[in-house]
C-alpha cells in the first residue's frame, strides 16, 4: 500500500466510518438539510439541534449513505461541533475547507489544534476526487444552520452548492 493511501485511510477514519457518531435521525431539530453528491449518489439528511434560547449546537443527528470518507467526516464533525456555539461551528467549517484545499500539506498548528480529530482528513486533500466526500457533511451542517435561521447565507454563495460542485 502506498503512503498516500495510508494517509487517506487513517485508522481514526476507518473507526469513525464503522461506528459513526450522530448517525440516526432524531425527530426534533431546528434546521434540516439534505445533500447529495451527484457524481456518486452519496446522500445525507442532517438535522441541527440547538439549545433553547442559545445560539449553541446541542448536537447533530443525521442519516445517509456514502463512502468511508463521507461517513467518517460526518461522524467527526458531529463530535466536533457538539456544544459549540454557532459562530465556532462556522469557523471550524471554514478551517476544515481550508484543510481540504491544502493539497495534503496540513495547516498551522493553531488551526489543526482546533480541528482535533478532523486533521485525520489531511490526506484526503491529496485525492481531488475525494475532497467532496469529506465536505458533504460540512455542506449539510452549513445549510441546516441557514435553515434554522442561525446564520445567514452570504450573497452569491448558496450553502447547498458551494461545497459540492
Amino acid at each position, binding site marked *: 500500500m502506498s503512503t498516500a493511501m495510508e494517509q487517506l485511510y487513517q485508522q481514526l477514519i*476507518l473507526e469513525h466510518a464503522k461506528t459513526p457518531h450522530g448517525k440516526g435521525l432524531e425527530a426534533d431539530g431546528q434546521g434540516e438539510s439534505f445533500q447529495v453528491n451527484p457524481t456518486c449518489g452519496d446522500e445525507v439528511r442532517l438535522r441541527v439541534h440547538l439549545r433553547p434560547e442559545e445560539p449553541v449546537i446541542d448536537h447533530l443527528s443525521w442519516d445517509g*449513505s456514502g*463512502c*468511508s470518507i463521507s461517513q467518517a467526516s460526518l461522524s467527526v464533525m458531529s463530535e466536533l461541533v457538539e456544544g459549540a456555539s454557532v459562530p465556532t461551528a462556522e469557523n471550524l467549517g471554514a478551517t476544515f475547507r481550508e484543510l481540504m484545499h491544502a493539497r495534503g500539506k496540513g495547516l498551522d498548528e493553531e488551526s489543526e489544534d482546533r480541528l482535533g480529530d478532523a486533521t485525520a482528513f489531511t490526506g484526503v486533500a491529496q485525492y481531488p476526487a475525494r475532497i467532496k466526500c469529506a465536505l458533504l457533511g460540512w455542506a449539510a451542517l452549513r445549510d441546516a444552520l441557514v435553515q434554522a435561521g442561525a446564520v445567514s447565507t452570504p450573497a452569491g454563495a448558496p450553502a447547498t452548492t458551494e461545497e459540492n460542485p
Partner: protein
Amino acid sequence: MTPGPVQTLGGRHAPAGEVVGLRASASLTAAELAAVRADFPLLTRTVRGGRPLVYLDSAATSQKPDVVIDAELEFYTRHNAAVNRGAHQLAEEATTAFEQAREDVAAFVGAEPGEIVWTSNATAAINLVAYAMGNASLGRGGAAARRFALVPGDEIVVTEAEHHANLVPWQELCARTGATLRWIGVGDDGRLRLDELATVVGERTKVIAVSHASNVTGAVTDVPRVVARAREVGALVVLDVCQSVPHLPVDLHALGVDFAAMSGHKMLGPTGVGALYGRRELLEAMPPVTTGGSMVEVVTMEHTTYAAPPQRFEAGSQMVAQSVGMAAAARYLGELGMAGVAEHEAVIAVALLDAVARVPGVRVIGPTDAQDRLAVVAFTVQGVHPHDVGQVLDDHGIAVRVGHHCAQPLHRRLGVPSSARASASVYTTLEEVAVFGAALATVRPFFGLGGKK
C-alpha cells in the same frame, strides 16, 4: 512499448511462427493482442508510483490507438480548412476528408453515408431526435413531419436500464408535448423484461428508446424482438449503440432500427464527436433542430428553406478533425474484424465474471452468466462503499469506474445506490483481469472485514 505478458486466449491460437495477421472470425491470438496493445501508447504508462496501468474503464471512455491520434494530427498539420465552402485546394481536401469520414463510419455500422449525422456526442444525437419530434409536434416540418408529432395521450417507451442520456431527453419531450413516458422493467437478473413489450407497448406508442447493451450490466438487448414489436404498432425505434459498436459487429440496416446514437470516444475515437444514424426517409422528413449556417438552401429575411439531410442537422462549424479521428477508429476496428474483437472480449467477460465470483462478499450487479453480455461487470463489495473499492484498486494501478454510471434508476431497481464497474476493450488482457482479481481480494481485508460472504 512494453506490453505485459499476454496469455493465449480462448484456446485458439496461431501456431508459432505464423505471421500476425488480422482475421475475421476468431479470437485474437496472443501475438495479435500484443500487437493491438502496441498500438495504444497510453497503455504503456504507469500510475500511482510506478505501477503498470490496468485500464478497466473502457465503458466510460476507451483509449486511442496511434492511427486515431495520427489522423487528427495529420488533419491539422496538412489539410485543415473550412469544409463545404471555399474554392481553394485545402478546402477541397478538408471537405473530402470530412465526407470520407462519414462514409467510413457509415460502412462500419452498415449504413449509407447520407444516413449519418455528425453530432458532438451520443447524448446530442438522442436529443436531436427528441427535439426534432418536439418541433414536429409544434407543426414544424409540415405534413412530411407529422409522423414525428406527439399529442397528449401518445406514449414513449424506454427501459429501466437506460443511461440517463436515453431517459431524460424523453422525459423532457413528454413534458413538452403531453405524451406519457412508460418503461420496460428490469428483472432481478439485471436483464430487460422484454415480455413486457406485449403490455407496455401499445397502439399509442410512438417511440421505443432502448440501449443495445447496458453500460452497467453489460447485458445485450434482443433488438430484433424490440423492432418486431415496434413494427406491430408503428412505433419508431431509437437505439443507443454507444456500448455495442466498440465491442460487437453492428449492422444497423440488418437490425432495422429507425435511429441510432453513436459515441466516438467509446469506440477508440476522439472525444467531442458522435453520430446519429437515421433511416434516410426519416431524416428527409424530419424538421431541423439547431439552425443557422450550413444547414440551409435559400435564406431571405422572411423565410428559410433547409438543406437535405444530413447537412440539415449539422448547423454551424463541424468537429471535422474529430470526425476524421472517429473514422480512423472505425477503420481500425473494421480491420481487426469485429467478430474477432467480440470473441476476444467474450473471453475477457468470462474471466472478469470468474475473477469477481472468486472474491467473497462481492456481488455482481446484473447477469452473472456470459451469455449475451459484454465484458462490463458492475459489482458491489459487501461492507465497502464503491468509492472506497475504487480507491483501493487505484492504489494497485487499476482504473475502474465507481458511482451510478449515469443509470440511477437501474441501480435503484437492483437495490444499490451505486457500484464499481470493470469494463474491457479490445486491448484488455487476461493478465490484467488476474491483477484485478487479486487486488479485489484485498479490498475487504483492507477495511478490516472478514472474507465470508
